[in-house]
């Protein structure tokens, strides 16, 4: 019998493309024969904006890249600037940075777990995830007044010290999460339908994952032990006791479970930071590119210039963001604005692997496999 393939346009307005992403699918009934990803619907020219603003002015723009986890974006950019200009950061500031970033990792993974289960048709997990996320967002609100776009980390340190009552509330959050995570585990491993929907779906081998340039939890689900916190330790990560979570099943289930394990590891890191955080300043007292400081800056909030000029040169700096490797390339020509900013986005690089995974599967499997990529369109299209 002669049959025709069906061209199905999934997106840019579709409930489960997580924003304005578009798939061009060639379908044989329900089976996907070809998948093309069309992106760019949310292109805002963030990289160009980087060239038009001063080094400090660009930090709020990085919040809007991956708005689910904005702290690591802040940090990745600030780290690149600091490396470029050679700015030293006080130890307490580094501890606070890692604290907020690990907290953001938990928030990010909660949102991912919720949205993945919602994509599979189970609507409860997203409410549970957002319930816990709310506490974390309140913590951020205490810290910097913002809930999603923080603009908190700045060259030389962080904007504010930890406020009063932050650590007790964080302790409560950790205790609460440790209880909740048991529920999440049961919701997943105790649910036959979830296992049916995710096991052996969207399989990508370790070799293919490397060839596609995947990073982060999506890649560690394929059994590649690749965590920049371990490979190229930055900040205070060398002093912390944690392990890079990895699974060898290579499927959607493995990628989900890596996230669940990472929440546990992040909680472990948070506890260590609470125990060992040193006292001191939260901003560097270096007066960069200005006359040497004569007096000791006042108390904790020390001065750091708003405009500074790093020496000409270029730097590429990368961190392990919750979704994968996030890199910033900055070229400086010795003025107050960068000559070029290039963002290596995790979503963009990871998504290359999706068409390889889904050919031969069905639409529900595409939704499930795509859900574990954990993309945010703000980051994908930049």
């Amino acid at each position, binding site marked *: 019998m002669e049959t025709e393939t*069906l061209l*199905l346009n999934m997106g840019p307005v*579709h*409930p*489960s493309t997580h924003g304005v992403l578009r798939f061009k699918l060639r379908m044989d009934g*329900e089976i996907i024969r070809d998948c093309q990803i069309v992106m760019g619907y949310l292109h805002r020219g963030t990289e160009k904006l980087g060239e038009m603003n001063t080094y400090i002015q660009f930090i709020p723009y990085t919040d809007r890249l991956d708005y689910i986890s904005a702290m690591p974006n802040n940090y990745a950019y600030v780290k690149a600037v600091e490396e470029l200009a050679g700015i030293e950061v006080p130890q307490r500031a580094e501890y606070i940075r890692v604290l907020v970033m690990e907290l953001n990792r938990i928030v990010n993974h909660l949102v991912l777990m919720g949205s993945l*289960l*919602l*994509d*599979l*048709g*189970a*609507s*409860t997990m997203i*409410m*549970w995830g957002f*319930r816990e996320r709310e506490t974390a967002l309140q913590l951020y609100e205490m810290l910097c007044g913002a809930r999603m776009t923080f603009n908190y980390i700045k060259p030389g340190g962080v904007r504010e010290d930890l406020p009063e009552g932050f650590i007790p509330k964080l302790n409560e959050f950790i205790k609460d999460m440790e209880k909740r995570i048991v529920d999440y585990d049961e919701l997943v491993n105790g*649910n036959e*339908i*979830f296992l*049916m*929907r995710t096991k052996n779906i969207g399989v990508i081998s370790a070799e293919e994952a490397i060839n596609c340039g995947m990073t982060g939890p999506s890649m560690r689900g394929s059994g590649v032990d690749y965590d920049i916190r371990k490979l190229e330790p930055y900040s205070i990560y060398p002093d912390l006791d944690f392990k890079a979570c990895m699974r060898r099943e290579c499927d959607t289930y493995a990628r989900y479970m890596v996230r669940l394990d990472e929440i546990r590891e992040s909680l472990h890191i948070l506890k260590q930071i609470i125990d060992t955080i040193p006292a001191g300043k939260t901003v560097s007292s270096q007066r960069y590119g200005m006359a040497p400081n004569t007096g000791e800056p006042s108390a904790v909030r020390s001065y750091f210039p708003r405009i500074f000029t790093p020496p000409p040169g270029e730097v590429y700096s990368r961190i392990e963001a919750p979704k994968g490797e996030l890199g910033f390339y900055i070229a400086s020509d010795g003025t107050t604005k960068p000559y070029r900013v290039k963002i290596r986005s995790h979503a963009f690089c990871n998504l290359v692997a999706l068409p390889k995974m889904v050919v031969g599967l*069905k*639409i*529900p*499997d595409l*939704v499930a496999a795509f859900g574990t990529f954990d993309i945010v369109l703000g980051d994908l299209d930049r």
Partner: protein
Amino acid sequence: MMTANAYELIISILKALNIFEPINNIFQKLGMEYVLKIIIVLVVIAILLVFVLLTVMFLTWLERKVFAVVQSRYGPMVTGPRGLLQPIADGIKLLGKEDIIPATADRWIFTLAPFIVFVSVFLVFIPLPFGKSLIISDLKVGLLYIIAISAVAPISILLAGWASNNKYSLLGAIRAVAQDISYTIPLALAAIAVVVFVGSLSMVDIVNYQGGYWFEIIPKWFIFLQPLGFILFLIAGIAEMGRIPFDFQESEQELVAGFFTEYSGMKFALFFLAEYAHLFAVSGIIVTVFLGGWNGPVLPFLPIQLTSLIYFLIKTYAVIFFTMWLRATVPRMRIDQLLNLGWKIMIPMALLNLLVAAFVMTAGVI
């Protein structure tokens, strides 16, 4: 006084109130007795329609509330006490919506489909006993009739999906039909096992059969006699309703809204109402066939019609709550997994169940 159905019940109530005779005399003088009959039948149908519509409205509210409790939120709270008037607000909103028919759609079929599904779901209620004598018509082929009428709804879904001229709608419609074919069979087979015991297809006979007690405590419900049959019937029933984990005709995360993607306004509302009416109908059938129908301990001072209605509603809402709870907890299966479950597991199990039932019956154990 024994009455067989709602029509006779109304006449007997009128007689008890001593107003039937004068009214009847008036119509007899005019030589139009049949007009009175038609009026009473219309009243019965109107009561059923209003009752089912109110139940459906209540169910949409209940579903939101059950969801909210599972997900630790409040649900609707603003419209009326505890948000009870939310369904009315929804209805008004949907009435005010523009009725859009896509330019490329098949206008006639597109308009017709929601009415077919709505009517077919309402027809299911005809042989369903809501309580003692609270039945429109005790058909001798009641169970067969229900299964047959349920098979009309997928046709209208296919019509809706095809007429919309939308790829998502078409995929949703194809899924709905595949699903319905593979689930009506285990549904019917599980029901036949019950019929083997009762020896009748009439819903009233099925309820009456479950009236007594074993050892004075265990009610003679078919759930205890046919546990496997009950589970099969429940799963097939949920698949028949098209609810999570089997809501493939919609599956909004994959197919936007499935077969009613292109529908808006009142046409959408008809699909929506039909969905909840179907939920109520299938739950009622499950209760009637497996959970003893309207049977329950006799209460003094209250007419049996009223107590039986209360028992029926309590049991039905228990089943409805279970399906809502299920919907709030589990993910959706995949269409091929569902078909595998239907053809490879449930049909053989249902046949086995039927075989055992036949053996038990012929051996004369019960």
